[in-house]
């Protein structure tokens, strides 16, 4: 187990190193850099001014040197300076991370608490009107784009309650923050919950036909115990995998939702930074996302072991 963990951690480090090269190179392959864009934004194409900005930002240095500066800085905890705001990148990124993290966490929580129980209910009540309803609900979750659903929610709020649940000012207190994030989290989480619901249902249906379920029933276990203690635990393995993948995909969903609900999170900020070719912001944020994805994958693998004692990670 110990050797496995060391191997996994080394692999994670190697993956992140590869990612850093990929991000760095890909960003520079995209046409235009910040100097082009700053000058373009002002509607001028003055080559002298452009050259001056390029030099000031160190974009005229050899690419290897630029990479070395970034990685060197990163290892010291220095994320560099944001090109657009001209402030330390950490000051731009840090306040936005908790907002997106809370939103993503709430969305995932929503997806799980809706997706798993409804998936189980749908499976145990197979081919009943309730099952049909839940299947339609899950299908609509998969087919409704988040931005459209978000706009519908906003329109409904304005029409029925005369208010709009968007992020205008920094919330005062945990409750207000919860209130502000709950609706967007539900909108983002709806799609993930639908996926989890469908997968839980099919996985449960498969498990419910297994011999050990019949054995559990024959020894007099209650329906609840059969469903949740015996069936669900085994049905959860593929669901956990999907939850891990969804956690990574949530970042994509957040971009749209943060835009529609005007949440000043990291996802919308990343898109804006890509548009401006603000390399220090994009590089560091993508690295952060890569780190989160790699870590979540690691945790999912660890969860397998907890869920199924038969799974052992050999040394």
């Amino acid at each position: 187990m110990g050797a496995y963990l060391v191997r996994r951690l080394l692999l994670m480090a190697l993956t992140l190193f590869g990612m850093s090269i990929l991000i760095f190179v890909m960003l520079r392959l995209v046409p235009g850099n910040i100097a082009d864009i700053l000058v373009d934004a002002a509607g001028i194409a003055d080559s002298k001014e452009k050259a001056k900005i390029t030099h000031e930002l160190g974009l005229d240095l050899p690419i290897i040197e630029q990479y070395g500066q970034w990685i060197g800085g990163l290892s010291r905890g220095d994320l560099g300076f944001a090109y657009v705001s001209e402030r330390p990148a950490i000051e731009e990124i840090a306040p936005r991370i908790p907002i997106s993290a809370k939103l993503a966490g709430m969305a995932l929580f929503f997806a799980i608490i809706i997706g798993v129980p409804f998936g189980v209910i749908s499976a145990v009540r197979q081919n009943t009107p309730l099952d049909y309803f839940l299947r339609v609900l899950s299908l609509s979750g998969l087919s409704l784009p988040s931005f459209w659903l978000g706009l519908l929610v906003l329109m409904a709020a304005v029409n029925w309650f005369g208010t709009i649940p968007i992020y205008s000012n920094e919330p005062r207190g945990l409750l207000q923050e919860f209130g502000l994030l709950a609706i967007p989290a539900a909108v983002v989480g709806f799609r993930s919950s639908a996926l989890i619901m469908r997968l839980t249902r099919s996985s449960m249906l498969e498990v419910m036909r297994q011999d050990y379920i019949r054995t559990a029933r024959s020894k007099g276990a209650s329906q609840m115990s059969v469903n949740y203690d015996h069936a669900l635990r085994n049905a959860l393995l593929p669901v956990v995998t999907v939850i891990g993948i969804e956690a990574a995909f949530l970042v994509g969903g957040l971009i749209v939702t943060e835009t529609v609900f005007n949440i000043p999170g990291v996802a919308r900020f990343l898109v804006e930074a890509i548009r401006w070719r603000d390399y220090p912001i994009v590089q560091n944020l993508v690295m952060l996302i890569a780190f989160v994805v790699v870590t979540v994958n690691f945790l999912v693998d660890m969860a397998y072991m907890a869920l199924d004692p038969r799974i052992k990670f050999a040394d």
Partner: protein
Amino acid sequence: MRTRLAVAAATFVALMMAAAPTYAQKQGGTLKISHRDNPPSASIHEESTISVNQPFMAVFNNLVLFDPNEKVNSPDHIVPDLAESWAWNDDKTKLTFKLRQGVKWHDGKPFTSADVKCTWDAVMGKGDEKLDIIRKSPRKIWYINLKDVTTNGDNEVTFTLGRPQPSFLSMLAGGYSPVYSCHVPGRDMRSKPIGTGPFKVVEFKRNESIKLVKNPDYWKKGRPYLDAIDWTIVPNRSTRMLGFGAGSYDMTFDSDVTFPLLKDVKAQKPDAVCEARPTNVNSNILVNRDKPPFDNPQIRHAMVLALDNRAFADILSQGNDLDGAVMLPPPAGFWGMPKEMLPSLLGHSPEIEKNRAEARKIMEGLGYGPEKPLKIKVATRNIAIYRDPAVILIDQLKKIYIEGELDPIDTTVWYTKIARKDYQVGMNLTGVGIDDPDVNFYENYYSTSDRNYTSYKNPEVDKLIEQQSAEGDLQKRKKLVWEIEKKLADDAARPILGYNVANTCWTPQLKGLVLQTNSIYNGWRFEDVWLDR
């Protein structure tokens, strides 16, 4: 005695009534406005977008200002701002300003003539590099005739011109000409600028908000009325409109409400005050006249003959956009040629079918026809307000055997591509900072301008531009301006398709806002605006 009393009473009542408006304004309150996007920076001198001017103009003062209470910006409606008075020398080449005394920057330092000098030195690219007040200057060309700025003590400054230029004062009166301070580095001016204006910047949080608060030491006593202005950056237009409908914002971003959207806004907020006004932003065609096929003047001529400007207006703005030449047409504009002259210009005749028949004949003469169309790419920024007219243009060009293919360009590299001449035909939008011929002609059509994107070079037009610029007689100058407009149209320099008209809406409690009809970039000082709550 009774008569005297009656006269005294009448005088008192009259005085009270005259004084009433000054007492009517209420102090206090926070004005909430939605902003359409992230301003590239807070430095007005470095940018060319309303996204910067609208929120940050209130932080600064100019030397002089277009009268904020007048709807039309014109040279005869310029009022003092940081300059108390101004005077020209006899040969009209030196403009001297007497500056207001006792004015302080938001950080408490005194404002002096040195600030005026270093601002315009920086704008002209002659500034002290160590000061680094600005790092790019899109309006350098405006000051092509400005030779020097000199100070005479702390309260007097003189602008020396190469030749007389009546428009010079107008250029200083627009929103793009704030006075910067010498002691604040450019980096700070781009993120948290220091000005002398009625509002101070509390914070500019990218992707989030811009917060301004009343400057308690503002030199204009009793102003501003508002305590604060909160701009919330809301990139999604639907969210902005819903927010306005729900009362989260007192005002929409300028010209944010298109005519199709106006109905929805009115349905959600029936008491909203909405005003349509020309933005002095025109849709125009960039033609690469240095490369085939448009190096052939006959093809350029045929292309312009194919245009139906009315159709653009009908489709894009329910018929509200204005047809005009290079200058915004009257009555919204001050300098544009009269309506009755417009049909004589190439591309503005109402006889569309006749024009197109003539265009087809030209194209046939050049060997093109239904079987052998001229295939071109129509490049444009990949955003709806650019793409939509480009699609209509492609449709209209089909009528004369030109088969266009839309080439959407990432908006961030649009001007770089144009500067490289890497296009055949481009659909462009041009916003004019000040409704003034010098600003428009020098910026967009003068042969040495960085913003003359098509590199249009016509020595005759350059000469006429200089001639009108020096002309002191208004009527004579207007005639020269119209002559230039005609030459540019006949030369297909940058065919104009129409002038955008759009709506701005606000809550009825918002008072004292005057939208100016010939430029969206001016009139955002907000010092006379108040909330009736």
